[in-house]
């Protein structure tokens, strides 16, 4: 029985560990923190593995969201805003990194709840109902948070050249993923 749990856990970590880390990265914008968040979630899930093995990913995702929320609440006090970013202009060779930097900054600029909703909705591809269930909020709140996040991204001029269209609102209303 114990060995079954261990094998099931190891298989899950091997199969989904990287996806969990990616999800963590989109919450934290830091690969080391993302790994820490992933391992924290797995460590909390492991003692309950025999009970959650039917759908461990949902369980782990929820732990990650809750853990990150508590970290965020604890750590934001130490935040020191800076007007100027330390990076200088990069050459074309680094266009990809530059693009990621712009996207990362835009995402980091969103309030925590909006970022969570956006990542769960569009990266984890959860439905509005699933996001609401995971975050313990209403579907209406998910919709409004998602709409606000998209509007904020749309209003970000730096993103326009990377394909975030300002007129995307009408398209998005028609999309209803």
């Amino acid at each position, binding site marked *: 029985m114990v060995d079954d749990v261990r094998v099931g856990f190891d298989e899950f970590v091997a199969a989904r560990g990287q996806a969990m880390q990616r999800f963590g990265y989109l919450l934290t914008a830091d690969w080391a923190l993302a790994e820490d968040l992933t391992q924290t979630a797995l*460590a909390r899930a492991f*003692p309950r593995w025999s009970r959650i093995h039917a759908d461990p990913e949902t369980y782990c995702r929820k732990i990650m969201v809750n853990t990150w929320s508590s970290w965020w609440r604890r750590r934001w006090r130490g935040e020191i805003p800076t007007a100027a970013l330390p990076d200088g202009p990069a050459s074309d060779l680094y266009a990809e990194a530059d693009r990621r930097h712009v996207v990362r900054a835009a995402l980091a600029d969103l309030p925590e709840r909006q970022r969570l909703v956006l990542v769960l909705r*569009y990266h984890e591809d959860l439905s509005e109902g699933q996001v609401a269930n995971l975050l313990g909020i209403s579907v209406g709140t998910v919709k409004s948070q998602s709409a606000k996040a998209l509007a904020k991204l749309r209003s970000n001029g730096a993103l326009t050249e990377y394909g975030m269209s300002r007129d995307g609102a009408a398209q*998005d209303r028609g*999309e209803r993923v």
Partner: protein
Amino acid sequence: MGTTGNDVRRMLDLLTVDQPAAPPDRAASVRRRVQRRRRNMAAAALAVAVGLTAVGVGVARSGALGGSPPTSPGRAVPRWALPWPDHRNGSVPRTVLDGAVLAWRHQSELTTGSWAMTAPRRVIWYVGQTAAHGQVVAVIFEVAAPAGHRLVAGWTTASEVMNGQPGWRKSGISPWVLYDVPAPRNVPGLLIGLNTHGTTARPGQNPDAWIVALAAPDVGSMSFRAPGVPLPNKVAAVIGIGTTSRGLLTGDVGQIGGLVEIDTLSVGHRNVLPSPVTVGVPGAPASMTPQLALPAPLRLVGFRGEAGELDGQGNVVADNRPGRPIRVIVVRCYGPAPLRILIGNLARTHLAGIVTCDNVQHVLRYYGPQPRHGSVLFVRASDLISYRVAYGI
């Protein structure tokens, strides 16, 4: 480029393309972490058991020597703090309580002018729990900081902090109503009170006012008196006696129209309160005003265009300049006296109307003089009147 949703998906995928390779021993590392945590928890449980045994022995010895027993098992407080129990009952998560302390730091920074001066070296908790059937969260704590030893008491609506919201936003907004005074001395009859209110009401009524009163743990009961709202078929006052839980009382004082007073603090059959005191934080007069829930929302009819809105208790000024003149004012208020609306500018005002605070929506139409480029609207009301006002043309 597809829809906005696809744009976002592409952006998020782009962010993770430089994902590092998975650590080779991630699963084993997690299992080791779980084992470490189990060992630590076992060690902590053993330490607590040893500690409780020591405290038990201490209680027995102090009783035999005739000394007073500790007020809260296992609780040691510094000399400057009140030797009162910790009433946190687990109804409020630690993160919410931390949010209250953080909100206090930011609030104090505004008065001390220094973030460092508000860095808490130690926080002693007395109250951190829900009240009014879980509708509000009340906190009382003392803090040692470079700015001195402070007593902080306050409350907030539970729905504003219990769903993961921060205690303080970078915009400077906090859901907490906090009162901050120098840490009081532990004198007989010391009472720390909070006025608050529920958020739901019985049909046809406003939410009740509530009090949270904290006294020394040997106070077994308190009696309180609250003037009622002077309306037909309403009682003139609420008078009650409540049994405390080790000095803490939370009580529903109903629909009130005046300051709530504590008459007696009973220790056995003896009243240790020299004279009646108003419920509030000692040294913070603003805390003694009952906190009243807002009246029911207004029905905004009769306005041409958008209406300005304000709400609250006591006097307030709404500056509508530059803007259109004010011709229509809609008011709903309740309290023991009428409310007056004046219109004009900061130098000269004209009475637009006097409104009876009977919890009914009233519409005033004002045709008097007003400045060309918009007016200032003054609400003149006592602190015991709660109102909503909308104004426009």
